[in-house]
Structures are given as C-alpha cells and as structure tokens.
C-alpha cells in the first residue's frame, strides 16, 4: 500500500481534482495534441512563447489521475522558463519517473514535479506521466501533428 500512497500523493489527487491552467488558449503561438491510444488519454498543450521564454502555458484533455496531474504540474513549473530549460526539465523529469537516478543533481530544479517520483515503481504508468511532456516537446518543435506515446 505504501507504493500506492507514494503514487497517489495528496498533491497529485489535488491536481487531478483541480487541474491548474486547464483552459484553451486563444492565439497560442504553439499547440500540439498528445494521445495515448492504449489508455485513451488525450491532452492538448497551448504555449505562448516570447523571445524564447514561455510566457503562458495551458492544457486541456482527459485521462487518468497520473496523466492529468502531470500535465497540471507541468504547466505550473514551465512559466518563465526558456524552451531550452523546458526541454532540459523534460529530460530530468523522464529520469525521475523512470528511476535513472539523477534527481537532485545540478541544473534546473524539478521542484514540485518530484511528487511524481512514485511513478518509477509503476513502469506501466510512465507513459501516463510523460504524455503531457512529449506533447510539450512536439509543441516546442513546432510540430502540429498529434504525438502518441505508443
């Protein structure tokens, strides 16, 4: 049960119930759709980027607690970051949830994203946790086609 409690932490449950920045964005500079066809999770990421800095980010979608909380938390930490910092965060976040053992080190702090560390005990759920990030990556790369985690 402890692993389950680690996975479904209060912060995650809170973000699932009240996702932050959960809205469409008019005049977004970039947007991308993500989809996990195996579980039916869907997410759309909207970005406003000025001079390489993410000024605003929002999302919409539906999915499991992990995917929705992950998307919500992601939007919270991205504001004010450069595209490059965002990509770097993605790499470190990926390491965090797949237990590549680099959390805590130097570079951009993962901050509140660390509540998703419990995912590493649930390899089947890594796709849920990273869907929003893969979609962000596609948006930053100016790819308008849908990405999937399959």
């Amino acid at each position: 049960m402890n692993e389950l409690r680690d996975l479904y932490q209060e912060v995650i449950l809170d973000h699932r119930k009240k996702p932050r920045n959960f809205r469409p964005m008019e005049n977004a500079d970039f947007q991308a759709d993500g989809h996990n066809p195996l579980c039916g999770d869907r997410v759309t990421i909207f970005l406003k980027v000025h001079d390489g800095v993410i000024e605003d980010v929002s999302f919409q979608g539906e999915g499991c607690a992990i995917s929705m909380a992950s998307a919500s938390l992601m939007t919270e930490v991205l504001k004010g970051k450069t595209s490059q910092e965002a990509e770097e965060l993605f790499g470190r976040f990926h390491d965090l949830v797949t237990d590549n053992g680099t959390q805590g080190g130097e570079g951009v702090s993962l901050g509140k994203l660390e509540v998703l560390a419990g995912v590493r005990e649930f390899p089947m759920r890594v796709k849920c946790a990273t869907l929003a990030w893969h979609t962000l990556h596609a948006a930053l790369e100016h790819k308008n086609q849908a990405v999937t985690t399959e």
Partner: protein
Amino acid sequence: MTIGNIAAKVPMAGRLFDIERVRADFPTLQQQVHGRPLVYLDNAATAQKPRPVIEAIDHYYQWDNANIHRAVHQLSERATQAYEAARDKVQRFINAAQREEVVFVRGTTEAINLVAQSFGRNRLQAGDEILLSHMEHHSNIVPWQLLCEQTGAVLKVVPINDAGELRLDEYEKLLSPRTRLVAMVHASNALGTINPAREIIKLAHAQGVPVLLDGAQAVPHMPVDVQELDCDFYAFSAHKMVGPTGIGVLYGKGQWLEAMPPYQGGGDMILSVSFDKTLYNDPPYKFEAGTPHIAGAIGLGAAVDYLEALGMENVALYEQELSAYATEVLAQIPGLRFIGTAQEKVGVLSFTLEGVHPHDVGTILDHEGIAIRTGHHCAQPVMDRFGVPATARASFALYNTKAEVDALAAGIKRVGELLG
C-alpha cells in the same frame, strides 16, 4: 442453446467440477502478487495454462522435436502424429464435418486475414458490401478495411443497442443483394455480448451470403458446434482457451477451402514446384505454409483434451453462475456503470467508475493482487458507441471463484477510498 436460462436452473453449478482441483492444475494461479494471492481476471486477453498443456509442449521439445510431414525418421513420425492428432481433437471439439476443414494458423487475427485475402480478394469488387457489427474487435475490422482498399468493396456496420446487443432488425435491413460476406463476432470481448449466431447465419444464407464468425471469446466459454451453427468460417485462438499463444484455428467449410487460392507460399502448401508451375497441396495444407507452430498445435490439442474432460457445458454453466454473481455484487457499488448489459453474455464485466479513470482502477487493483484489463480492449468503435475512452474489464475463466469476485468488489471499494 440459451446458456443463461440453463444456468438459472442449476443453482449449484459449482458442483459441476471440483474447482479446487481445477485451480491446482494451473501453476500461475499459485502465486502472490504484491504480497496478495493472485486473482487473475484478465482471461479475455489470455487465459492461464493448465499443467497438461505445459507438459505436452515440454514433452514435444524434450522427446519428439522434429519437423513434420517430410522426414522418414522416428522423431518426425512422432511429431507428425502429434500434430495431426491435435487437428483431429479440434475437429471433434468444434464438430467440423472433416478434419481437412481445420486449418492451423497463428490465431484469430491470422484466420480472419486469411479469409479476407484468400476468399475475398478474388471474389469481391467495387461496390460489393461486407457486413460487420459495431461491437467488432479491431482484428475483425482492419482486415476487411484492407480488403476494401484492394477491391473497392465497402463496409456496412450493423448498429447495437444501449445494452450492447446486435440490432437484428437493422441487420436484416442492411443485408442486401450487394452483400458478399458477413463477418461478425460470436461473443464480444469488450461487452461480453453473445450474438444470435444461428439467426445471423440463417438470415445471411437466405440471401446466399456466407458468414465468418470470430469465435475468439466464445470457444473458451461455451460448446461450439460449427455444423449446428452452419457458419462458413469460424476463427479462434488457442491462448484464450487455456492453450499456448501463437496458434489458432480457421475452420472453413470444405467447399470454400477447396475453391480458395493459397494465402502464403512455401512449405507444406506445395505438392510440386517447377519454375513453370507449382501444384498446390489440398486443404488444410494448402493454407499451412512453412514449418507450422508444431508445439503450439500439440499444446492446443492438450487444451482441447483438458476442456473436454471438464465438459464445455459444465464450463459454460459454471462461468454463467460466477458471472451472474459478479454482476449482482458489483452492481451494488456506488458510481459503477456496466458497459454491456446484454441478455446473453459470456463472463465479461466491462465497467466504469464515476470520476476515476480505468487505468487508475487497474493500478490500484493490481496492488491488491487483482489483474484486470483497462483500456479500449482493441474495440475502439465500441468505446465510441458508449461515449467512454476506456473501461475496466474483469473477465472470467473456468478457474475463477466467487471468493475472487468478492476480492474484486473489495478492491474496487479501495479505489473509491483512495481516489473518491
């Protein structure tokens, strides 16, 4: 037969066989997962294997491993005998008229692809229609779409009602002089619905239209008699009926198999080859190109023996009682909605929990040692029909128990406590 009605008359169906002895036959069931006894309820995806099946495969590789049909040596003779004996067992199991009507393939999917290509490709042309239902598994949709791209034929989809039952009236309307083939699931993997196969076939035959049944979810759970059904093709997989993966069966009426061209070239499908002309072997060998899954076929034969020893009537009655009990117990859980409430069902309970995504349900149940399936079950059109992205699905096999159903219900309540 109407299994549901018979089950109602046998309130003590548990006596039909000794469930504890049956469970003891399945090594995988004897383990703990996350410190809890495994409750395996993902049988519609694949069933666990009893010791006799595992031992038959083991025996083949330890003693009889050789290629079949060609060599004159002892091992090849034994392997050939065991492989062909498996065909006889399958023939008896589904009551095919001739052993030649039993073609070994990789599974249901390959069986359907074989019919689509070998039967359909030369026979269909632009404007012809293939009739499916809205509850098909992807494997009984996509091969027909490929065929449509190749021939210009079109798919027509028979709608289902809110309970997940086929609209027979709509089916009758959709059957037309343009219909060349009906391909329909016998029992739905996502909804559990048992289709009125005899009715479907009778109506099609009245118009001279052949019918393929996807029997992947029917064969493991009820007696299937292809002659009584009068179907033209019947496809199923061993791994869902306590046999090995990678082997399955295409049953086809002799007249069709004779007339169909080979599906793949090479190996046993050949009588003689010259660069000018190749003579093809007769069915079923015409469709068994290359070295087949010999061990798999032998394992399938052992699975048939195992199921026949229990009796498919008994299996059907037992699972029906279990499933009725589970429906009753789960229906009492607040926020639980069943997807698929047909009158005639196999033991598949697909459900959603209000406010909780099926994947979270699956993860939490897994921690209780309970294996269920979550997702769209390779039946996305069904999910669309019911307006859900996915469901949680508990599916039963002959070794499941009421105690496991109680564990499932308790697990679902834990989901509510954690995420509610």
